[in-house]
């Protein structure tokens, strides 16, 4: 089997939220790296997070578990998480599992603002 990578890029575009850009594969092999990065970001005080999924090619159950854990943690700490523009395949998986009903999913960049204005 090929081994696939995940690239995580963090960007703070404005005061209100942090954008975490994921590129590649979020699965059992890469989920630890993702979680470690998230831990750094959240423990540094960031509670409003946008996960940019435009470049994410694949998400496995382990990856979805990590997103679920992050959402629950942020909600507990009065934060919020928005998933931005998952590709068709990733969206289909999220939808199949019922997670489009739980996660905030923004299909356009402009929609991201709506989720944070409410907070």
């Amino acid at each position, binding site marked *: *089997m090929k081994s696939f990578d995940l690239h995580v890029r963090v960007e703070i575009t404005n005061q209100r939220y942090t954008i975490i850009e994921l590129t590649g594969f979020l699965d059992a092999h890469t989920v630890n790296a993702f979680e470690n990065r998230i831990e750094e970001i959240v423990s540094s005080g960031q509670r409003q997070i946008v996960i940019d999924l435009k470049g994410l090619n694949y998400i496995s159950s382990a990856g979805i578990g990590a997103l*679920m854990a992050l959402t629950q943690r942020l909600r507990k700490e009065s934060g919020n998480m928005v998933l931005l523009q998952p590709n068709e395949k990733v969206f289909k998986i999220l939808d199949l599992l*019922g997670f489009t009903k739980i996660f905030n999913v923004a299909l356009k960049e402009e929609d991201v603002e709506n989720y944070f204005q409410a907070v």
Partner: protein
Amino acid sequence: MSKNILTLIIIILFAAVIILKKRIRFLRVYSETRMKEREAVISFLHKIGERITHSIDLQGSLEIITNFIVEYTHAESGAIFLLNEEENALRAKVVIGLFPPLHQTTEHAFTKRKFLTERIMRDKVNLGEGIIGYVAQSGITQLITDPQNDPRVPQTSDVSIASLMVAPLKIKDKVLGVMALANKRDGISFDERDKSLLESLSDQAAVTVDIVKLYDQLAKQQRIEQELRVAHDFQKLLLPKECPSVEGLDMAAISEPALEVGGDYYDFFWVDEDHLGVVIADVSGKGIPGALVMSMLRSALRAESRNILSPAAVLKVINEYIRTDTQVNVFITAIYAIIDIRTHKILFARAGHEPLVIFTDGGKKHDFVAPNGIALGMVGEDIFNITENREITLAEGDTIVLYTDGVVEAMNKASEEYGQQRLLKTANRSLHGKAKEVLDAVMADIREFSGDLPQHDDITMIVIKVKALMDSVTSRAPVGSGTENLNY
């Protein structure tokens, strides 16, 4: 003249005797040193052998090696460093006695042995850095009798260094680490004999470290393999041996676990005497934790499903079970269907699982049915409540297929997925046959599609067909029509 010659001969003889005596004395000392070294190595092997027959672990072996070498060379303190290949730097693994700090320090908090040891264990030494890094890089043993004038030795007021010996732990040209000794106990400096002894012991220590490291890796790998095997066997144990025989229905099921990922599960059980429960599930965790969650699901379902005719209601209860008992990132996708065996009406709920496929009109029509629902074990009751029941009624000759993502996500060499369309097409071609034939056709097609690529996820599929009246007449008599759960 002849007298002179005689005198010369006598002088030469005298000189020869003196030289020979010196040589003999040198040889004796040399052989004593050699003997002592041999004795030391044998005693070392004995000691390490004793330990290894007990248990082999790297840290324990390193402790024994360091202790032994410090004792045998009468050193006041010693430390063993191993090369960490990822960092390309050395890390102290064992420190005995007041070993001097590795870096120049102006702090004076290190007078206590504990602090000193802690600091050395924490510090990283790059290849080529200081005396430790020098020996690791060059592979040459160093004896330093005037450390104050050697720039490679960090100057510190915490521990006064009178003499120092550092030897590489190397096998052929590969340096595994470094053994360092500071100060001789009787106050005199280490000398060439001590250096030679340290070299002999370090050679032996290197071989030991290499073997133990290899064994350590192997043991870890074996433990993982062992765990996977146990989980596999366990998973197999949970699956039914065969499908129940029910009048009017033709059923077939298969679950082929992948080498590493295990987590697919299916089951049949009686809800009451007229209703057969069918479940297909995919647990997100793998190995033993995954198998445990699976067994929990199995018992919970069998217990909670009795006499309850709403699959969504049962899944809601199961969701709470799984949620409170597992970590947040373990979840299960499942379809739970209840078949009324008299009317062939099916009520089912989908907890985030792949849709149910239904073929009607002899395969002329098909549909992927995916009612609202969320995977088990992720969210509380308030959100899980969107999981709903859907009713379908099968007519004679109709077929339903339940499957896990391993079917549609099976990959070929070009990294393409098998996909729903190919599943539909293949199943459709063999719909006229028995349920088992549909199953076999799809499995064979997946194998053909994937070629010789290893299967990367479990593949599980259930095919249920309502027999046409003609088939029904020739079918076997029903077996499990009681309220007892089927025990396979």
